[in-house]
Structures are given as C-alpha cells and as structure tokens.
C-alpha cells in the first residue's frame, strides 16, 4: 500500500510539472488543446492525490505500523476518531493534506470556469501557478517529509497521539485552516494570471469571489476553533495569546477581509486595481507563510515543533512569490490605472478605503510583533520578543475603529451620500452607541475605558445593521405589499451579498463585545486549597468539596488511564450557583525502563480537563493541578519493590495510589476564572458563519436571466429615450 502511495505522489509531481508546462505552452501558442490537456492534468492530480491521501488515512485507521508516520503518531490504544485525525498531526500528513486540498479546489475552479467559458485567457496562467505550488509541496512531500516511508521491522505498537491533540476540534481545526490557506491560493493564482495575460478588469475578481469568501470563511472558522480549543482544553483559561502560530493564521485573514471589501469597489467603479491585486498577492503569500510558520520552528511558540528540514525550501518559495508579485505589479502598472476617481469622502467607497487601511494596519502590527525576534536579531544581534501587552496596545484602538466603520458602512450610500440622508440614518446608531456606555457607567461598570468604548461601538454597529434590516424590509413591503416576515426573507434572498455581509458585521460586533468584556472584566484567582477550604473570585465563593479519581474508565475517550480531580461547589451570597468538576488526565509514558512500571502512569503527559459552566452572562472556568509528588514517591517505592511487575499489577498499584490520593488528598492548586460574556465570542462567531453562508449561497435561476440577442439594441434605444 505504501508503494501505491509513493507512486501516486510521484505521478502527481509529474502531472504538476506537465500541467504547468502544457498550460503555458497552450496559452502562448494559442493552442486550446494543450490548455485543455493542462486542465485535465489538474483533474488527474486531484484524483491521484485523493488516492494517496486515502491510503494514508486507511493506514492510520488500520494501525498499519509498517508506515513510519503511523508508528510515530498513533497507537492501537488511540480511539478511532483520533487515529484518523492523527494523519494530519504529523508534518508529512499535513503536507499531503495541503496538496490534496489544493488539487481539489484547483480542479473545482477550473471545471466551473471551463463550463462557463470564462477567463479563457487568464486560466492557463493561473493553472500554471496552481500546478507550481502543488509541485513545490509534492517535492517537499516526496523528498523531505514522505508519509509513505516504511520500516523494515514494523513494531507492534506506536507512540500514540499527543494527548493535547485529543480533542474533537482536532478533526476540524487543521482541515479548516488548511482549507482557508489553500482556497486563498486560488484568487492569488488568478491575480497572477490576470497580470501575466494583461486582463486587468474585474472579471478575475468576479469569477474567484466565492473562493476568496470561502477561504475567508474557513480560515475564520479555523482561528475561532483554535481559540475555543485553547479556552476549553488548556489549563490557562485564555483564548488568545498573540502566539506566533495564532498570528500566522490571523494575518492572511485580515488581508483577506480587506480584499473582500475593496474588491467590491473594483467591481463597481474600476478603481483600486493596484491595491486589490497587491492585497490578493499579499494574502496568498501570507497564507503560505502561515503554513510555513507552524511547521518550521523559526519562531518560539507553543506550536513550534523544533527545527525542520523544510525551512530553506519554504523561504525560497515565499521569497519567489513575494518578489514575483512585486515584479508583476510593477510591470503592469500602466494597465492597473483606475478608471474612476473617488467622488466624495462621504461615500461607501471612502469608508471601505478606511476599513482597508485599518485592516492592513492591523496586519502590519501583527506581522511586526510576530517577526520581531528575527528583526531585532538582524538589527541588534539580540533576539528580543514583544508580549501581549504590546500587541494589545496597538490592536485595541484599531479594532475599535474597525467596529465603528462596520456600522457606518451599511448606512452610507455608494458614490456620494446625501448629508441629510446620512444624518438621518446615523441618528439611532449614534444614540445607542453613546447611551450604552453612559448607561453602563451609571450602573457602576467602570474602570476600563477601551472596553466601554468597544461596547459603545458594538452597540452602534448592531443598531446600524438592525436598522438596515428594518428599513429594507419596510421598503420591500412598500413595493410589493408583502407581510413583514415574507418581505424580510425576500429582501435577504434578493440581496444575499449585502445582507449576508450585514449579518457578518453584526456577528463581529457581538464577538468584539465578548472579547472586550472578558478581557477587561474577568476575575481570576489561583489558590491552593485542601478539601473544605473556600476561595473567593469576583463575588463567588468556590469551595473544594472533595477529590475525585478515575482509573481505566476513559469516559471522554481520550486514552487517559488515570485521572485525578475535584468537585467544587460555587455559590454566591449563600445561594448555590453550580458545581464544577475539573480534573487532570494522566497518560502513561512509553518509557518503562526510565519511569518504572508503576511510575510511568504518572510521569507521562497530563492534560487538564477543564471544569466549565458557560452562560450567556458569564463563564465560570476552573482547572486543577493536583499535587502528585507523594504519589510519585510511593510509585518509585513500588517500582523498586516490584521491578518486574506485570502490566496488570502495575495498573492495580497505580489505581490504588489514586484511591489513596482521594482518601487523603494533599492541597491542590486551582485556577478559577469568572469572566463575563465569553459565550458572546462563540455566539458572534456562529452569527458570522451564518452571514458568510448567506453571502456564499448561489443565486437562484431567476437572477441569471440573460438578455436575448438584439434586446441590447432595443433596450439601448429605450433608455436613450428615457
């Protein structure tokens, strides 16, 4: 089977090279047959990489230990769900996932375009770019990190999947992020193609619009899932740390958001051509950079897997993409001149421009902070890094402006807004935006100015969006006399892009309100408690009721053999609020010789199982760090007494030690956090997802009526008379 996988990869590489060559030849020699052959090479590439990927997943599910990657990342004791996801926890598997996804999306866009007969001059060059990228990743997969390397003597057991990765999000978070990255390469490739072919009107944007939006969608989902995973799985209680890998995924997302907005301007007015093309090229480069940052280890991060062999090739690719992009834009700068100019600063175009500047500014801040260790090393010789406070200082004001703009954009007209209309439309949002912070101040919520301003901006944006729906439905009713719910539905259905976008804005406002509240007004306490003791957090009394333990009873299907935990009782002013049960799961280490047959149960990896009670108004979050020093000492004693204990006996002793812990528990360290409105972050995310889906949804047949021949002349005559 490994042979089949290896062969598929080599065939795929050949197809990528052929596809690029055939497409370019066909485009230059104007031979459509070669162009079509190049396109079919991409379809074949998709088929072949699918086979290879399927082979790899099958090997993991079967626990086929002749595959080196399966040995290193999975085991027979890993649950089926996680055996499948383990495929992309490895360097090799994740590269193959990248190529698989790239080939799939490339095939899709090429097939759609071929069917409609669109972009026939641009598509061949875009195909060449996509094939080039695929070829690079295939080269890395075949020669530097091959998932199909086999072992001469297959071991009987594997190392197992890192326990931190045993979370349902593992099934969605990496594929979502990689889908986002690979989908962004499609508009990138078509921008390059448009520049080479000299076809710089908006048709390349229109045809790849859905791909850019889908990329933005998947990347956003991936980022949000990563934040949620961190919050609900790791023992620190936060959801964002400005970690280099988090930032790596945020940068293309920010640029992508800017592009989605400014693309609309080019479609309508033929303006901002240089800007759009540069944004899309930057987004593509950042997407590849993001992939590289996670896997290369050049920046210190929780995700960094140490130095790898991929560093140099990736830097070469990114440098080529960046230099090539700049070169192409400079070469075509004359054709990229705008067709029109900005009519007025009081227009949606101006707001979009400002929004773009803020987003690119945010991206620059994140970029600078992320790469600062390398920058400072280059400039001063010392590797220095900046922490979250520095990031917050710049991103918070920019985020405030962004949310504010997301409220102004919907209520201002294109080209040139009437001042009267603008004032009328901004009245209600402005009132809400000012009233909310004032009201909160009056209610005693104070101390964090930026959070209060964010609440105001969020209220402003939400009111503006709500007002748009209200007025739009009202307008529809006036035109057609339909009942309000039907009018609303028809309104959204006929203006999917606009109202889908409004829903996204609303979701982002909710999300930012949640971020502001939970960052500024959270109460946290780390306490060392014995059973019966209580600690206070933000008005809540948290009492350590009793310890808990579990042996070989893997409720959450994560593979932890032993877990130690606690029951906490939370009350407020004497009234019981909730009960929390945080615990810590211990995974046995595989090194019996060093850790001892009993000791290994406690000396392997351990993960926090967070005790969380989420609510619409606030979350109560807690994690426990039990004191295992006594258990480890007793385990060492047992290991010295029974050096050749059978697995059964060792498990029994380990279990007894856990029971002993529960009977006479030493004090355990707890972290308790009371943070308001965290759920709003996830809710906001869901609203954004809904909005994106509305905007992505294909238009019905009704909207695709094309005028019959001759009608054009007739209409022109009629309009001339009007």
């Amino acid at each position, binding site marked *: 089977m490994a042979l089949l996988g290896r062969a598929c990869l080599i065939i795929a590489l050949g197809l990528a090279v052929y596809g690029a060559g055939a497409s370019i030849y066909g485009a230059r020699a104007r031979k459509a047959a070669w162009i079509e052959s190049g396109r079919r090479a991409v379809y074949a590439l998709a088929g072949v990489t699918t086979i290879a990927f399927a082979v790899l997943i099958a090997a993991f599910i079967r626990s086929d230990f002749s595959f080196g990657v399966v*040995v*290193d*990342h999975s085991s027979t004791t890993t649950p089926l769900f996680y055996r499948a996801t383990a495929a992309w*926890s*490895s360097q090799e598997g994740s590269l193959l996932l990248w190529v698989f996804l790239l080939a799939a999306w490339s095939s899709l866009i090429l097939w759609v375009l071929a069917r409609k007969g669109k972009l026939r001059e641009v598509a061949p060059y875009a195909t060449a770019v996509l094939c080039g990228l695929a070829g690079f990743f295939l080269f890395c997969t075949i020669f530097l990190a091959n998932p199909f390397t086999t072992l001469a003597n297959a*071991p*009987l057991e594997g*190392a*197992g*999947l*890192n*326990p*931190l990765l045993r979370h349902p999000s593992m099934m969605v978070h990496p594929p979502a992020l990689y889908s986002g990255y690979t989908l962004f390469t499609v508009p990138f490739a078509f921008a390059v193609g448009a520049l080479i072919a000299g076809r710089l009107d908006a048709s390349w944007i229109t045809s790849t619009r859905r791909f850019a939006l889908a990329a933005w969608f998947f990347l956003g989902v991936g980022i949000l899932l990563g934040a949620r995973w961190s919050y609900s799985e*790791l*023992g*620190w*209680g936060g959801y964002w740390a400005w970690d280099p890998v988090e930032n790596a995924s945020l940068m293309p997302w920010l640029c992508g958001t800017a592009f989605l907005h400014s693309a609309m301007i080019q479609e309508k007015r033929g303006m901002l051509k240089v800007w759009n093309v540069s944004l899309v090229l930057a987004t593509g480069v950042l997407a590849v950079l993001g992939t590289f940052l996670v896997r290369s280890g050049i920046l*210190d*991060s*929780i*995700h*960094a*897997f*140490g130095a790898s062999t991929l560093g140099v090739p990736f830097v070469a690719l990114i440098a080529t993409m960046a230099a090539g992009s700049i070169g192409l834009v400079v070469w075509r700068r004359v054709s990229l001149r705008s067709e029109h*100019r*900005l009519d007025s600063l009081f227009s949606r175009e101006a707001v979009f421009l400002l929004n773009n*500047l803020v987003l690119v*500014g945010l991206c*620059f*801040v994140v970029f*600078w*902070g992320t790469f600062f*260790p390398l920058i*400072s090393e280059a400039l*001063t010789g*010392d*590797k*220095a*890094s*900046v*922490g979250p*406070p*520095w990031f917050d*200082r*710049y991103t918070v004001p920019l985020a405030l402006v962004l949310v504010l703009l997301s409220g102004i954009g919907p209520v201002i007209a294109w080209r040139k807004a009437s001042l009267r209309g603008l004032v009328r439309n901004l009245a209600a949002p402005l009132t809400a935006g000012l009233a909310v912070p004032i009201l909160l101040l009056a209610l005693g919520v104070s101390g964090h100015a930026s959070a209060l301003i964010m609440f105001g901006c969020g209220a402003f944006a939400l009111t503006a969006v709500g007002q748009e729906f209200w007025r739009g439905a009202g307008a529809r009713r006036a035109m057609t006399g339909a009942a309000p719910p039907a009018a609303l539905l028809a309104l959204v259905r006929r203006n999917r892009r606009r109202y889908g976008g409004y829903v996204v804005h609303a979701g982002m406002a909710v999300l930012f309100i949640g971020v502001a509240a939970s960052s500024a007004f959270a109460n946290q306490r*780390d306490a*060392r408690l014995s059973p019966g003791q209580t600690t206070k957090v933000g008005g809540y009394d948290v009492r350590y009721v009793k310890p808990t333990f579990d042996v070989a009873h893997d409720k959450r299907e994560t593979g932890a053999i032993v877990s130690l935990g606690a029951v906490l009782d939370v009350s407020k002013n004497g009234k019981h609020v909730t009960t929390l049960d945080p615990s810590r799961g211990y995974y046995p*280490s*595989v*090194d019996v*010789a*060093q850790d001892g047959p009993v000791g290994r149960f406690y000396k392997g*990896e351990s*993960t*926090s199982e967070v005790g969380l009670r989420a609510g619409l108004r606030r979350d109560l979050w807690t994690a426990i*760090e039990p*004191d295992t*020093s006594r258990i480890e000492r007793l385990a060492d004693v047992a290991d010295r007494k029974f050096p050749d204990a059978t697995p059964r006996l060792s498990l029994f002793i380990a279990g007894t030690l856990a029971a002993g812990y529960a009977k006479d528990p030493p004090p355990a*360290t707890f*972290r308790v956090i009371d943070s308001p409105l965290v759920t709003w972050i996830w809710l906001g995310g869901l609203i954004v997802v809904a909005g994106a889906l509305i905007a992505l949804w294909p238009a019905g047949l009704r909207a695709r009526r094309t005028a019959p021949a001759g009608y054009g002349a007739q209409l022109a005559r009629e309009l001339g008379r009007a």
Partner: protein
Amino acid sequence: MDPSRKRKIRLVVALGAALLLAGALAYTSFSASSEAKTPSQLAGGAQPGRSYELTGKVAAGSVHHDGGALFFRVRDRSGNTSVPVRYVGAVPDPFREGREVIVDVRKQGSVFVGERDSLVTKCPSKFKAAHSS
C-alpha cells in the same frame, strides 16, 4: 483646489500617517521587548530587575513545588549551565523535565523570578520513547 492636487494631498497625508504609525510601532517594540537569553548568557551576567526571555530545557531532577510556587532549573539546550527559576502562575500541560521552555524572568537575588503566566512549554509533535521496541 483642483481635484488632482486634492488627491495628492490626501495621498501624502495617508502615507505620512502610515509612516508615523510604523515609526511608533518600531520604537515601542524595541523598548517593550525582552531579550531572549540562554541560561549560560544569564548566568554570565544579568541586570537585576530587567525582564529577559529565558529559553532552554528543564533540568532533570530540578522540579519541585514549595508553597504556592514552582521551582525548577533551566539549562542550555546542549550544555550543563543552568539557572534557578521560581515561578508562580499557570503551568502548561506539556511541562516536564527535559522539555524546552520559554519563560519571562527577572533577576531577584540569586534566583530568577518568572513573570506570572509567562511560562510556555514547546509542544513536542513526536511523542517518542527514547528506545523503540
């Protein structure tokens, strides 16, 4: 004022604002940053009270709790020079002897005090045993 001049002024203003922001960014990043140092560099000479980002491996046998704090020693990746660290705050799940860590510390007397919640442990992707069967 004719439109093209207006446009040029707008462009200059926008570029000027961008440069100002970039300048402020660059300036504050240098002053707000903490230098990355290895244990041997810190042992060689560290200014008390100044924040450093210590990177290295957790020395074997050096981890113990006392009261509410975690004590451990960080040694060079390849070498034996190690410095003592006293840390209070969230301990990441993968924290273990022999693992690579990053922690922001300040020198206080003979010990380096870690800043709260600044301890990061590098996540090992390969979860391998020292010897394979």
